Protein backbone atom coordinates (compact mmCIF):
# COMPACT_ATOMS: atom_id res chain seq x y z
CA UNK A 1 0.00 0.00 0.00
CA UNK A 2 1.10 3.47 -0.85
CA UNK A 3 0.57 4.99 2.56
CA UNK A 4 4.02 6.47 2.84
CA UNK A 5 3.52 8.37 -0.38
CA UNK A 6 2.18 11.89 -0.25
CA UNK A 7 -1.27 12.31 -1.67
CA UNK A 8 -4.31 14.48 -1.95
CA UNK A 9 -7.41 13.67 0.03
CA UNK A 10 -10.54 15.02 -1.63
CA UNK A 11 -13.94 15.14 -0.09
CA UNK A 12 -17.15 14.67 -2.07
CA UNK A 13 -20.70 15.12 -0.86
CA UNK A 14 -22.48 12.52 -2.92
CA UNK A 15 -21.60 9.06 -4.20
CA UNK A 16 -22.30 10.23 -7.76
CA UNK A 17 -19.65 12.94 -7.71
CA UNK A 18 -17.17 10.50 -6.17
CA UNK A 19 -17.88 7.90 -8.84
CA UNK A 20 -17.55 10.51 -11.57
CA UNK A 21 -14.25 11.77 -10.20
CA UNK A 22 -12.83 8.27 -9.87
CA UNK A 23 -13.83 7.46 -13.40
CA UNK A 24 -12.32 10.65 -14.76
CA UNK A 25 -9.13 10.22 -12.74
CA UNK A 26 -8.62 6.69 -13.96
CA UNK A 27 -9.20 7.65 -17.55
CA UNK A 28 -6.54 10.33 -17.09
CA UNK A 29 -4.13 7.63 -16.06
CA UNK A 30 -4.11 8.05 -12.27
CA UNK A 31 -3.50 4.80 -10.46
CA UNK A 32 -3.39 3.75 -6.82
CA UNK A 33 -6.63 5.57 -5.96
CA UNK A 34 -8.29 4.78 -2.65
CA UNK A 35 -11.80 5.68 -1.57
CA UNK A 36 -13.66 5.72 1.74
CA UNK A 37 -17.43 5.90 1.93
CA UNK A 38 -20.02 5.87 4.74
CA UNK A 39 -21.84 2.94 3.17
CA UNK A 40 -21.17 0.53 0.32
CA UNK A 41 -21.51 2.52 -2.92
CA UNK A 42 -22.71 0.49 -5.83
CA UNK A 43 -20.23 0.49 -8.69
CA UNK A 44 -17.32 1.94 -6.70
CA UNK A 45 -15.32 -1.27 -6.74
CA UNK A 46 -15.79 -1.47 -10.52
CA UNK A 47 -14.65 2.07 -11.28
CA UNK A 48 -11.68 1.66 -8.93
CA UNK A 49 -10.97 -1.55 -10.85
CA UNK A 50 -10.66 -3.53 -7.64
CA UNK A 51 -10.31 -7.21 -8.43
CA UNK A 52 -13.41 -9.15 -7.42
CA UNK A 53 -13.27 -10.39 -3.85
CA UNK A 54 -12.22 -13.98 -3.46
CA UNK A 55 -14.22 -14.27 -0.26
CA UNK A 56 -17.09 -16.21 -1.94
CA UNK A 57 -14.66 -18.80 -3.24
CA UNK A 58 -13.03 -19.15 0.18
CA UNK A 59 -16.44 -19.58 1.76
CA UNK A 60 -17.39 -22.24 -0.76
CA UNK A 61 -14.20 -24.15 -0.05
CA UNK A 62 -14.65 -23.72 3.69
CA UNK A 63 -18.21 -25.00 3.50
CA UNK A 64 -17.20 -27.99 1.42
CA UNK A 65 -14.38 -28.81 3.81
CA UNK A 66 -16.73 -28.58 6.78
CA UNK A 67 -19.44 -30.71 5.19
CA UNK A 68 -17.25 -33.34 3.63
CA UNK A 69 -15.05 -33.43 6.74
CA UNK A 70 -18.07 -34.09 8.94
CA UNK A 71 -19.24 -36.85 6.61
CA UNK A 72 -15.76 -38.37 6.67
CA UNK A 73 -15.59 -38.16 10.45
CA UNK A 74 -18.94 -39.89 10.82
CA UNK A 75 -17.98 -42.58 8.32
CA UNK A 76 -14.67 -43.20 10.06
CA UNK A 77 -16.33 -43.38 13.44
CA UNK A 78 -19.34 -45.50 12.51
CA UNK A 79 -17.75 -47.86 9.98
CA UNK A 80 -14.05 -48.13 10.77
CA UNK A 81 -13.29 -47.12 14.34
CA UNK A 82 -16.33 -48.24 16.27
CA UNK A 83 -18.75 -50.30 14.17
CA UNK A 84 -21.84 -51.36 16.09
CA UNK A 85 -24.11 -53.96 14.55
CA UNK A 86 -27.66 -52.95 15.34
CA UNK A 87 -30.01 -55.53 13.84
CA UNK A 88 -27.84 -55.80 10.74
CA UNK A 89 -28.49 -52.23 9.64
CA UNK A 90 -25.92 -50.66 7.36
CA UNK A 91 -23.04 -49.04 9.20
CA UNK A 92 -22.72 -46.18 6.74
CA UNK A 93 -26.16 -44.75 7.39
CA UNK A 94 -25.67 -41.72 5.18
CA UNK A 95 -29.18 -40.23 5.47
CA UNK A 96 -28.61 -39.78 9.19
CA UNK A 97 -25.14 -38.36 8.57
CA UNK A 98 -26.59 -35.58 6.44
CA UNK A 99 -27.95 -33.18 9.07
CA UNK A 100 -24.69 -32.70 11.02
CA UNK A 101 -22.84 -32.35 7.71
CA UNK A 102 -25.29 -29.66 6.60
CA UNK A 103 -24.86 -27.69 9.81
CA UNK A 104 -21.08 -27.93 9.70
CA UNK A 105 -21.13 -26.80 6.06
CA UNK A 106 -23.00 -23.66 7.07
CA UNK A 107 -20.83 -23.13 10.14
CA UNK A 108 -17.50 -23.52 8.34
CA UNK A 109 -18.56 -21.39 5.37
CA UNK A 110 -19.69 -18.66 7.77
CA UNK A 111 -16.53 -18.83 9.88
CA UNK A 112 -14.25 -18.75 6.85
CA UNK A 113 -16.18 -15.78 5.48
CA UNK A 114 -16.04 -13.77 8.68
CA UNK A 115 -12.41 -14.57 9.46
CA UNK A 116 -11.54 -14.03 5.80
CA UNK A 117 -13.11 -10.59 5.82
CA UNK A 118 -11.12 -9.59 8.89
CA UNK A 119 -7.81 -11.08 7.83
CA UNK A 120 -7.90 -9.89 4.23
CA UNK A 121 -8.84 -6.37 5.36
CA UNK A 122 -5.96 -6.38 7.82
CA UNK A 123 -8.29 -6.21 10.84
CA UNK A 124 -7.99 -5.96 13.72
CA UNK A 125 -5.43 -3.20 13.36
CA UNK A 126 -6.12 -0.43 15.76
CA UNK A 127 -3.70 2.10 14.47
CA UNK A 128 -3.42 2.96 10.83
CA UNK A 129 -1.72 6.07 9.45
CA UNK A 130 -4.94 7.15 7.73
CA UNK A 131 -6.53 7.80 11.11
CA UNK A 132 -4.27 10.83 11.52
CA UNK A 133 -5.44 12.46 8.31
CA UNK A 134 -7.64 15.47 8.80
CA UNK A 135 -11.26 14.85 7.91
CA UNK A 136 -10.87 11.07 7.86
CA UNK A 137 -13.50 10.68 10.58
CA UNK A 138 -16.09 12.18 8.22
CA UNK A 139 -15.97 9.06 6.07
CA UNK A 140 -17.90 7.19 8.71
CA UNK A 141 -20.83 9.60 8.62
CA UNK A 142 -21.49 11.58 5.45
CA UNK A 143 -18.32 12.23 3.44
CA UNK A 144 -17.11 10.34 0.39
CA UNK A 145 -13.33 10.53 0.39
CA UNK A 146 -10.90 9.94 -2.42
CA UNK A 147 -7.15 9.71 -2.09
CA UNK A 148 -4.86 10.27 -5.07
CA UNK A 149 -1.10 9.83 -4.96
CA UNK A 150 0.97 12.92 -5.62
CA UNK A 151 4.14 12.18 -7.46
CA UNK A 152 6.69 14.89 -8.04
CA UNK A 153 4.38 17.70 -8.94
CA UNK A 154 3.21 20.10 -6.29
CA UNK A 155 -0.31 19.11 -7.17
CA UNK A 156 -1.68 22.48 -8.24
CA UNK A 157 -2.99 21.09 -11.51
CA UNK A 158 -4.45 18.06 -9.75
CA UNK A 159 -6.01 20.29 -7.14
CA UNK A 160 -7.79 22.43 -9.73
CA UNK A 161 -8.79 19.42 -11.70
CA UNK A 162 -10.37 17.79 -8.61
CA UNK A 163 -12.21 20.97 -7.65
CA UNK A 164 -13.66 21.20 -11.12
CA UNK A 165 -14.82 17.60 -10.71
CA UNK A 166 -16.94 18.25 -7.65
CA UNK A 167 -14.47 17.92 -4.76
CA UNK A 168 -15.21 20.10 -1.74
CA UNK A 169 -12.24 20.04 0.62
CA UNK A 170 -8.78 19.10 -0.41
CA UNK A 171 -5.86 18.38 1.84
CA UNK A 172 -2.38 17.09 1.36
CA UNK A 173 -1.82 13.96 3.41
CA UNK A 174 0.72 11.22 3.84
CA UNK A 175 4.41 11.39 3.10
CA UNK A 176 6.34 13.87 5.20
CA UNK A 177 3.49 16.32 5.55
Amino acid sequence: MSIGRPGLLARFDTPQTLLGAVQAARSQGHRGLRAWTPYPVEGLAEVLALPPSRLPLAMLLGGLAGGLGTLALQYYSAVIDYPVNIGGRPLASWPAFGPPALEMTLLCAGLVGILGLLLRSGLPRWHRPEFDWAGMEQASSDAFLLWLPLDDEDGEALRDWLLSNGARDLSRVGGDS
Partner: protein
Amino acid sequence: MNGEGWLAAGTTPGDVDARIARPALAPRFGAGWRIGLSVSLLGVLVLMLTVSVLLTVGVGIWGITRPAYWGFAIANYVWWIGIGMGGTFISTALYLLRQPWRNSLSRYAETMTVFAVCVSGIFPILHLGRPWFFYWLFPYPDTMNVWPQWRSALFWDFCAILAYLLVSVLFWYVSMLPDLATLRDRAAGRMRRVVYGFLALGWQGEAREWQRLEALTRIIAALGVPLVFSVHSMVALDLSEGLLAGWHTTIFPPFFVAGALFSGFAMALVIGVPLRKRFRLEALITERHLDRLAILLLTGGLVVAYCYAAEIFMAYYSMDEYELAVTRFRFTGLYAPVYWAAIVCNVLAIQPLWWARVRRSPRWLFWIGLSVVFGMWCERIMLVLSSEYRPFLPAAWGRFMPTVWDWAMLAGSIGLFMTMLLLFVRWFPVVSMHETRQLAHESAQGSREAQA
Protein backbone atom coordinates in the same frame (compact mmCIF):
# COMPACT_ATOMS: atom_id res chain seq x y z
CA MET B 1 -32.45 -1.91 -3.88
CA ASN B 2 -34.80 0.97 -4.32
CA GLY B 3 -35.11 2.46 -0.91
CA GLU B 4 -37.44 5.26 -1.83
CA GLY B 5 -40.22 6.01 0.56
CA TRP B 6 -39.11 3.78 3.40
CA LEU B 7 -38.00 6.59 5.65
CA ALA B 8 -40.00 9.61 6.67
CA ALA B 9 -39.86 12.32 4.02
CA GLY B 10 -36.84 14.58 4.29
CA THR B 11 -34.71 12.24 6.40
CA THR B 12 -31.07 12.93 5.57
CA PRO B 13 -28.09 10.69 6.29
CA GLY B 14 -27.02 13.22 8.91
CA ASP B 15 -30.36 12.79 10.71
CA VAL B 16 -29.88 9.05 10.69
CA ASP B 17 -26.52 9.29 12.41
CA ALA B 18 -27.66 11.86 14.90
CA ARG B 19 -30.76 9.95 15.86
CA ILE B 20 -29.05 6.62 16.30
CA ALA B 21 -25.64 7.63 17.56
CA ARG B 22 -26.80 10.30 19.98
CA PRO B 23 -28.35 7.96 22.58
CA ALA B 24 -25.28 5.72 22.56
CA LEU B 25 -23.00 8.70 23.08
CA ALA B 26 -25.20 10.52 25.58
CA PRO B 27 -23.56 10.91 28.99
CA ARG B 28 -26.80 9.98 30.78
CA PHE B 29 -29.77 7.87 30.06
CA GLY B 30 -33.28 8.10 31.41
CA ALA B 31 -34.37 6.92 34.83
CA GLY B 32 -36.73 4.46 33.14
CA TRP B 33 -33.76 2.66 31.70
CA ARG B 34 -32.04 2.43 35.08
CA ILE B 35 -35.19 1.06 36.71
CA GLY B 36 -35.63 -1.43 33.88
CA LEU B 37 -32.04 -2.51 34.20
CA SER B 38 -32.35 -2.93 37.97
CA VAL B 39 -35.40 -5.15 37.59
CA SER B 40 -33.69 -7.17 34.89
CA LEU B 41 -30.56 -7.56 37.00
CA LEU B 42 -32.77 -8.84 39.80
CA GLY B 43 -33.89 -11.48 37.30
CA VAL B 44 -30.25 -12.33 36.61
CA LEU B 45 -29.67 -12.76 40.35
CA VAL B 46 -32.65 -15.10 40.52
CA LEU B 47 -31.19 -17.05 37.61
CA MET B 48 -27.78 -17.28 39.29
CA LEU B 49 -29.37 -18.48 42.52
CA THR B 50 -31.43 -21.08 40.68
CA VAL B 51 -28.44 -22.35 38.76
CA SER B 52 -26.37 -22.55 41.95
CA VAL B 53 -29.07 -24.57 43.69
CA LEU B 54 -29.46 -26.71 40.59
CA LEU B 55 -25.75 -27.48 40.47
CA THR B 56 -25.65 -28.29 44.17
CA VAL B 57 -28.83 -30.34 44.47
CA GLY B 58 -29.56 -31.55 40.96
CA VAL B 59 -32.35 -31.35 38.42
CA GLY B 60 -34.72 -32.78 41.02
CA ILE B 61 -35.40 -29.25 42.21
CA TRP B 62 -37.49 -28.88 39.08
CA GLY B 63 -40.87 -30.54 38.79
CA ILE B 64 -39.60 -33.09 36.31
CA THR B 65 -40.40 -36.64 37.25
CA ARG B 66 -41.18 -39.83 35.43
CA PRO B 67 -42.51 -39.93 32.81
CA ALA B 68 -42.28 -36.19 32.19
CA TYR B 69 -38.50 -35.69 32.11
CA TRP B 70 -38.38 -32.71 29.81
CA GLY B 71 -40.68 -30.28 31.52
CA PHE B 72 -40.03 -26.56 31.47
CA ALA B 73 -36.36 -26.74 30.58
CA ILE B 74 -36.85 -28.09 27.09
CA ALA B 75 -40.02 -26.10 26.43
CA ASN B 76 -38.24 -22.89 27.44
CA TYR B 77 -35.30 -23.79 25.26
CA VAL B 78 -37.56 -24.33 22.23
CA TRP B 79 -39.37 -21.10 22.99
CA TRP B 80 -36.25 -18.98 23.27
CA ILE B 81 -34.50 -20.36 20.24
CA GLY B 82 -37.71 -19.91 18.25
CA ILE B 83 -37.80 -16.24 19.16
CA GLY B 84 -34.35 -15.91 17.68
CA MET B 85 -35.44 -17.32 14.34
CA GLY B 86 -37.63 -14.33 13.52
CA GLY B 87 -34.66 -11.99 13.74
CA THR B 88 -32.51 -14.07 11.43
CA PHE B 89 -35.38 -14.31 8.99
CA ILE B 90 -35.77 -10.52 8.92
CA SER B 91 -32.08 -9.96 8.38
CA THR B 92 -31.44 -12.75 5.84
CA ALA B 93 -34.53 -13.82 3.90
CA LEU B 94 -35.76 -10.26 3.47
CA TYR B 95 -32.27 -9.25 2.34
CA LEU B 96 -32.34 -11.91 -0.35
CA LEU B 97 -35.81 -10.79 -1.37
CA ARG B 98 -34.49 -7.20 -1.71
CA GLN B 99 -36.88 -5.70 0.78
CA PRO B 100 -35.26 -2.37 1.63
CA TRP B 101 -37.51 -1.84 4.64
CA ARG B 102 -35.63 -4.54 6.51
CA ASN B 103 -32.65 -2.16 6.78
CA SER B 104 -34.28 -0.26 9.63
CA LEU B 105 -35.16 -3.44 11.48
CA SER B 106 -32.25 -5.77 10.84
CA ARG B 107 -29.95 -4.61 13.64
CA TYR B 108 -32.29 -4.89 16.56
CA ALA B 109 -33.82 -8.04 15.10
CA GLU B 110 -30.38 -9.63 14.88
CA THR B 111 -29.61 -8.46 18.38
CA MET B 112 -32.77 -10.07 19.63
CA THR B 113 -31.70 -13.26 17.86
CA VAL B 114 -28.25 -13.31 19.33
CA PHE B 115 -29.45 -12.76 22.89
CA ALA B 116 -32.36 -15.18 22.58
CA VAL B 117 -30.08 -17.92 21.28
CA CYS B 118 -27.59 -17.29 24.10
CA VAL B 119 -30.36 -17.58 26.67
CA SER B 120 -31.86 -20.66 25.04
CA GLY B 121 -28.55 -22.51 25.15
CA ILE B 122 -28.54 -22.44 28.96
CA PHE B 123 -31.53 -24.73 29.26
CA PRO B 124 -30.49 -27.91 27.45
CA ILE B 125 -27.04 -27.76 29.05
CA LEU B 126 -28.42 -27.47 32.57
CA HIS B 127 -31.02 -30.08 31.75
CA LEU B 128 -28.22 -32.57 31.08
CA GLY B 129 -28.12 -33.20 34.81
CA ARG B 130 -24.35 -33.14 34.88
CA PRO B 131 -23.78 -30.00 32.86
CA TRP B 132 -20.05 -30.02 33.52
CA PHE B 133 -19.83 -32.97 31.12
CA PHE B 134 -21.55 -31.13 28.29
CA TYR B 135 -18.40 -31.39 26.23
CA TRP B 136 -19.12 -35.10 25.85
CA LEU B 137 -21.42 -33.95 23.06
CA PHE B 138 -18.40 -33.03 20.97
CA PRO B 139 -16.81 -35.74 18.88
CA TYR B 140 -13.37 -35.67 20.42
CA PRO B 141 -10.84 -38.46 20.94
CA ASP B 142 -11.61 -39.34 24.57
CA THR B 143 -10.17 -42.05 26.77
CA MET B 144 -13.52 -43.86 26.87
CA ASN B 145 -13.23 -44.50 23.15
CA VAL B 146 -16.83 -43.64 22.45
CA TRP B 147 -18.29 -41.36 19.84
CA PRO B 148 -21.47 -39.33 19.85
CA GLN B 149 -24.53 -41.07 18.44
CA TRP B 150 -24.48 -39.62 14.93
CA ARG B 151 -27.95 -40.93 14.12
CA SER B 152 -29.65 -39.15 17.00
CA ALA B 153 -31.55 -35.92 16.51
CA LEU B 154 -30.07 -34.77 19.81
CA PHE B 155 -26.62 -34.67 18.25
CA TRP B 156 -27.99 -32.99 15.10
CA ASP B 157 -29.60 -30.42 17.31
CA PHE B 158 -26.30 -29.81 19.10
CA CYS B 159 -24.58 -29.19 15.75
CA ALA B 160 -27.42 -26.94 14.65
CA ILE B 161 -27.33 -24.74 17.75
CA LEU B 162 -23.55 -24.54 17.64
CA ALA B 163 -23.60 -23.42 14.00
CA TYR B 164 -26.47 -21.04 14.54
CA LEU B 165 -25.01 -19.43 17.63
CA LEU B 166 -21.52 -18.92 16.23
CA VAL B 167 -22.60 -17.69 12.82
CA SER B 168 -25.24 -15.32 14.14
CA VAL B 169 -23.04 -13.85 16.90
CA LEU B 170 -20.03 -13.34 14.65
CA PHE B 171 -21.99 -11.96 11.72
CA TRP B 172 -23.92 -9.64 14.01
CA TYR B 173 -20.62 -8.28 15.27
CA VAL B 174 -18.92 -7.96 11.90
CA SER B 175 -21.89 -6.18 10.37
CA MET B 176 -21.78 -3.76 13.30
CA LEU B 177 -18.13 -2.78 12.66
CA PRO B 178 -18.95 0.20 10.40
CA ASP B 179 -21.37 1.53 13.01
CA LEU B 180 -18.84 1.07 15.80
CA ALA B 181 -16.41 3.01 13.64
CA THR B 182 -18.96 5.81 13.38
CA LEU B 183 -19.30 5.88 17.15
CA ARG B 184 -15.53 5.88 17.52
CA ASP B 185 -15.29 8.87 15.19
CA ARG B 186 -18.10 10.79 16.85
CA ALA B 187 -17.40 10.02 20.51
CA ALA B 188 -16.34 13.01 22.55
CA GLY B 189 -14.58 11.48 25.55
CA ARG B 190 -11.30 9.63 25.35
CA MET B 191 -12.68 6.62 27.22
CA ARG B 192 -15.47 6.08 24.71
CA ARG B 193 -13.18 6.65 21.78
CA VAL B 194 -10.85 3.98 23.08
CA VAL B 195 -13.62 1.47 23.80
CA TYR B 196 -15.49 1.97 20.53
CA GLY B 197 -12.20 2.16 18.68
CA PHE B 198 -11.16 -1.15 20.21
CA LEU B 199 -14.46 -2.74 19.25
CA ALA B 200 -14.40 -1.30 15.72
CA LEU B 201 -11.14 -3.22 15.11
CA GLY B 202 -9.80 -0.39 12.94
CA TRP B 203 -12.60 -0.38 10.38
CA GLN B 204 -12.27 2.57 7.99
CA GLY B 205 -14.93 2.09 5.38
CA GLU B 206 -12.52 1.79 2.50
CA ALA B 207 -13.94 0.56 -0.80
CA ARG B 208 -12.12 -2.75 -0.43
CA GLU B 209 -13.59 -3.36 3.02
CA TRP B 210 -17.10 -2.58 1.83
CA GLN B 211 -16.66 -4.85 -1.13
CA ARG B 212 -15.81 -7.74 1.17
CA LEU B 213 -18.54 -6.92 3.68
CA GLU B 214 -21.09 -6.82 0.86
CA ALA B 215 -19.94 -10.18 -0.48
CA LEU B 216 -20.03 -11.64 3.03
CA THR B 217 -23.49 -10.23 3.76
CA ARG B 218 -24.91 -11.66 0.57
CA ILE B 219 -23.56 -15.13 1.20
CA ILE B 220 -24.39 -15.16 4.90
CA ALA B 221 -27.92 -14.15 3.96
CA ALA B 222 -28.08 -17.07 1.58
CA LEU B 223 -26.68 -19.40 4.26
CA GLY B 224 -28.90 -17.93 6.96
CA VAL B 225 -32.13 -19.05 5.35
CA PRO B 226 -31.29 -22.77 5.33
CA LEU B 227 -29.74 -22.27 8.76
CA VAL B 228 -32.99 -20.93 10.23
CA PHE B 229 -35.09 -23.65 8.67
CA SER B 230 -32.70 -26.45 9.53
CA VAL B 231 -32.03 -25.39 13.11
CA HIS B 232 -35.62 -25.34 14.15
CA SER B 233 -36.31 -28.49 12.15
CA MET B 234 -33.63 -30.24 14.20
CA VAL B 235 -35.27 -28.95 17.36
CA ALA B 236 -38.54 -30.44 16.14
CA LEU B 237 -36.84 -33.71 15.29
CA ASP B 238 -35.74 -34.02 18.92
CA LEU B 239 -39.39 -34.55 19.63
CA SER B 240 -40.56 -36.35 16.52
CA GLU B 241 -37.73 -38.89 16.66
CA GLY B 242 -39.30 -39.99 19.92
CA LEU B 243 -42.07 -42.49 19.49
CA LEU B 244 -44.61 -40.79 21.74
CA ALA B 245 -48.05 -40.12 20.35
CA GLY B 246 -48.36 -36.44 19.51
CA TRP B 247 -44.62 -36.10 18.90
CA HIS B 248 -44.02 -38.77 16.30
CA THR B 249 -45.31 -36.85 13.29
CA THR B 250 -43.74 -35.59 10.11
CA ILE B 251 -45.47 -32.22 10.39
CA PHE B 252 -43.29 -31.24 13.34
CA PRO B 253 -40.35 -29.63 11.52
CA PRO B 254 -42.45 -27.20 9.42
CA PHE B 255 -44.80 -26.70 12.33
CA PHE B 256 -41.93 -25.75 14.61
CA VAL B 257 -40.34 -23.47 12.03
CA ALA B 258 -43.64 -21.66 11.49
CA GLY B 259 -44.11 -21.28 15.24
CA ALA B 260 -40.55 -20.07 15.64
CA LEU B 261 -40.87 -17.37 12.99
CA PHE B 262 -44.26 -16.44 14.40
CA SER B 263 -42.90 -15.92 17.91
CA GLY B 264 -39.83 -14.13 16.52
CA PHE B 265 -41.94 -11.59 14.62
CA ALA B 266 -44.04 -11.10 17.73
CA MET B 267 -40.94 -10.45 19.84
CA ALA B 268 -39.64 -8.09 17.15
CA LEU B 269 -42.80 -6.03 17.67
CA VAL B 270 -42.68 -6.27 21.46
CA ILE B 271 -39.13 -4.91 21.42
CA GLY B 272 -39.50 -2.65 18.40
CA VAL B 273 -42.50 -0.64 19.51
CA PRO B 274 -41.05 0.63 22.82
CA LEU B 275 -37.64 1.09 21.17
CA ARG B 276 -39.20 3.22 18.44
CA LYS B 277 -40.95 5.36 21.00
CA ARG B 278 -38.05 5.71 23.42
CA PHE B 279 -35.46 6.55 20.75
CA ARG B 280 -37.92 8.58 18.65
CA LEU B 281 -37.19 6.42 15.65
CA GLU B 282 -40.52 7.16 13.95
CA ALA B 283 -38.66 8.57 10.95
CA LEU B 284 -36.66 5.37 10.51
CA ILE B 285 -39.14 2.72 11.68
CA THR B 286 -42.26 4.12 10.08
CA GLU B 287 -45.82 2.90 10.28
CA ARG B 288 -45.21 1.12 7.02
CA HIS B 289 -42.50 -0.93 8.70
CA LEU B 290 -44.86 -1.87 11.49
CA ASP B 291 -47.48 -2.73 8.91
CA ARG B 292 -45.09 -5.09 7.13
CA LEU B 293 -44.07 -6.75 10.38
CA ALA B 294 -47.72 -7.15 11.31
CA ILE B 295 -48.44 -8.83 7.98
CA LEU B 296 -45.55 -11.22 8.60
CA LEU B 297 -46.95 -11.91 12.05
CA LEU B 298 -50.41 -12.59 10.70
CA THR B 299 -49.03 -14.88 8.00
CA GLY B 300 -47.00 -16.83 10.54
CA GLY B 301 -50.04 -17.08 12.78
CA LEU B 302 -52.18 -18.47 10.00
CA VAL B 303 -49.61 -21.14 9.21
CA VAL B 304 -49.45 -22.04 12.89
CA ALA B 305 -53.24 -22.18 13.09
CA TYR B 306 -53.25 -24.47 10.07
CA CYS B 307 -50.75 -26.75 11.82
CA TYR B 308 -52.95 -26.93 14.92
CA ALA B 309 -55.87 -27.92 12.70
CA ALA B 310 -53.75 -30.41 10.77
CA GLU B 311 -52.63 -32.11 14.00
CA ILE B 312 -56.21 -32.59 15.12
CA PHE B 313 -57.24 -33.73 11.66
CA MET B 314 -54.39 -36.26 11.46
CA ALA B 315 -55.31 -37.72 14.84
CA TYR B 316 -58.89 -38.36 13.75
CA TYR B 317 -57.90 -39.37 10.24
CA SER B 318 -55.44 -41.97 11.52
CA MET B 319 -57.91 -43.23 14.16
CA ASP B 320 -54.86 -44.33 16.11
CA GLU B 321 -56.11 -44.69 19.65
CA TYR B 322 -53.00 -43.17 21.21
CA GLU B 323 -53.05 -40.17 18.88
CA LEU B 324 -56.73 -39.71 19.65
CA ALA B 325 -56.07 -39.96 23.36
CA VAL B 326 -53.34 -37.31 23.24
CA THR B 327 -55.61 -34.99 21.28
CA ARG B 328 -58.33 -35.46 23.88
CA PHE B 329 -55.84 -34.92 26.72
CA ARG B 330 -54.93 -31.65 25.07
CA PHE B 331 -58.54 -30.55 24.90
CA THR B 332 -59.62 -31.61 28.35
CA GLY B 333 -56.66 -33.06 30.25
CA LEU B 334 -54.49 -31.71 33.01
CA TYR B 335 -52.81 -29.18 30.72
CA ALA B 336 -55.96 -28.13 28.85
CA PRO B 337 -55.73 -24.52 30.13
CA VAL B 338 -52.31 -24.22 28.50
CA TYR B 339 -53.70 -25.58 25.24
CA TRP B 340 -56.63 -23.20 25.18
CA ALA B 341 -54.43 -20.28 26.19
CA ALA B 342 -52.24 -21.07 23.18
CA ILE B 343 -55.27 -21.15 20.89
CA VAL B 344 -56.61 -17.86 22.24
CA CYS B 345 -53.28 -16.03 22.17
CA ASN B 346 -51.92 -17.43 18.92
CA VAL B 347 -55.00 -17.83 16.77
CA LEU B 348 -57.73 -15.54 18.04
CA ALA B 349 -55.67 -12.61 19.31
CA ILE B 350 -54.01 -12.01 15.94
CA GLN B 351 -57.24 -11.71 13.98
CA PRO B 352 -57.51 -7.90 14.43
CA LEU B 353 -54.41 -7.69 12.22
CA TRP B 354 -56.66 -8.03 9.19
CA TRP B 355 -57.50 -4.35 9.69
CA ALA B 356 -54.97 -1.88 8.36
CA ARG B 357 -55.66 0.50 11.22
CA VAL B 358 -54.59 -2.11 13.75
CA ARG B 359 -51.48 -2.92 11.77
CA ARG B 360 -50.41 0.71 11.95
CA SER B 361 -51.16 1.21 15.62
CA PRO B 362 -48.06 0.65 17.79
CA ARG B 363 -50.19 0.12 20.86
CA TRP B 364 -52.25 -2.67 19.32
CA LEU B 365 -49.17 -4.30 17.83
CA PHE B 366 -47.34 -4.28 21.14
CA TRP B 367 -50.15 -6.04 22.96
CA ILE B 368 -50.84 -8.50 20.16
CA GLY B 369 -47.12 -9.25 20.00
CA LEU B 370 -46.97 -9.82 23.74
CA SER B 371 -49.99 -12.10 23.55
CA VAL B 372 -48.29 -14.16 20.85
CA VAL B 373 -45.01 -14.38 22.77
CA PHE B 374 -46.95 -15.68 25.76
CA GLY B 375 -49.12 -17.90 23.57
CA MET B 376 -46.09 -19.48 21.95
CA TRP B 377 -44.63 -20.25 25.35
CA CYS B 378 -47.90 -21.99 26.23
CA GLU B 379 -47.73 -23.89 22.97
CA ARG B 380 -44.20 -25.15 23.67
CA ILE B 381 -45.27 -26.23 27.15
CA MET B 382 -48.35 -27.90 25.73
CA LEU B 383 -46.40 -29.78 23.06
CA VAL B 384 -43.79 -31.04 25.47
CA LEU B 385 -46.05 -31.97 28.37
CA SER B 386 -49.25 -33.25 26.78
CA SER B 387 -47.45 -36.14 25.09
CA GLU B 388 -44.98 -36.75 27.88
CA TYR B 389 -47.23 -37.10 30.88
CA ARG B 390 -49.34 -39.90 29.47
CA PRO B 391 -47.20 -42.43 27.56
CA PHE B 392 -48.60 -45.63 26.09
CA LEU B 393 -48.99 -47.61 29.30
CA PRO B 394 -51.47 -46.11 31.75
CA ALA B 395 -49.39 -47.66 34.55
CA ALA B 396 -46.61 -45.24 33.61
CA TRP B 397 -48.75 -42.13 33.68
CA GLY B 398 -47.53 -39.30 35.82
CA ARG B 399 -47.65 -35.58 35.95
CA PHE B 400 -45.32 -32.62 35.80
CA MET B 401 -46.07 -29.73 38.07
CA PRO B 402 -43.67 -26.78 37.96
CA THR B 403 -41.92 -25.98 41.22
CA VAL B 404 -40.83 -22.57 42.34
CA TRP B 405 -37.43 -23.27 40.74
CA ASP B 406 -39.04 -23.88 37.36
CA TRP B 407 -40.66 -20.48 37.54
CA ALA B 408 -37.48 -18.90 38.89
CA MET B 409 -35.52 -20.29 35.98
CA LEU B 410 -38.04 -18.93 33.47
CA ALA B 411 -38.16 -15.52 35.12
CA GLY B 412 -34.38 -15.49 35.39
CA SER B 413 -33.98 -16.25 31.69
CA ILE B 414 -36.27 -13.34 30.83
CA GLY B 415 -34.23 -11.16 33.19
CA LEU B 416 -30.99 -12.18 31.50
CA PHE B 417 -32.44 -11.47 28.07
CA MET B 418 -33.72 -8.08 29.16
CA THR B 419 -30.42 -7.20 30.82
CA MET B 420 -28.44 -7.90 27.68
CA LEU B 421 -30.97 -6.04 25.56
CA LEU B 422 -31.02 -2.98 27.83
CA LEU B 423 -27.25 -2.81 27.97
CA PHE B 424 -27.13 -3.10 24.21
CA VAL B 425 -29.62 -0.33 23.49
CA ARG B 426 -27.75 1.93 25.85
CA TRP B 427 -24.31 1.60 24.35
CA PHE B 428 -24.76 0.39 20.79
CA PRO B 429 -26.62 1.53 17.67
CA VAL B 430 -30.08 -0.04 17.68
CA VAL B 431 -30.54 0.60 13.98
CA SER B 432 -27.89 -0.21 11.43
CA MET B 433 -26.50 3.20 10.56
CA HIS B 434 -24.73 2.29 7.35
CA GLU B 435 -27.78 0.52 5.97
CA THR B 436 -30.21 3.32 6.81
CA ARG B 437 -27.73 5.94 5.58
CA GLN B 438 -27.89 4.26 2.22
CA LEU B 439 -31.70 4.32 2.33
CA ALA B 440 -31.67 8.00 3.26
CA HIS B 441 -29.31 8.86 0.39
CA GLU B 442 -31.44 6.91 -2.05
CA SER B 443 -34.69 8.46 -0.92
CA ALA B 444 -33.19 11.99 -0.91
CA GLN B 445 -32.00 11.36 -4.44
CA GLY B 446 -35.38 9.94 -5.43
CA SER B 447 -37.20 13.04 -4.21
CA ARG B 448 -34.68 15.30 -6.01
CA GLU B 449 -35.33 13.41 -9.21
CA ALA B 450 -39.07 13.61 -8.67
CA GLN B 451 -38.80 17.39 -8.33
CA ALA B 452 -36.68 17.78 -11.41
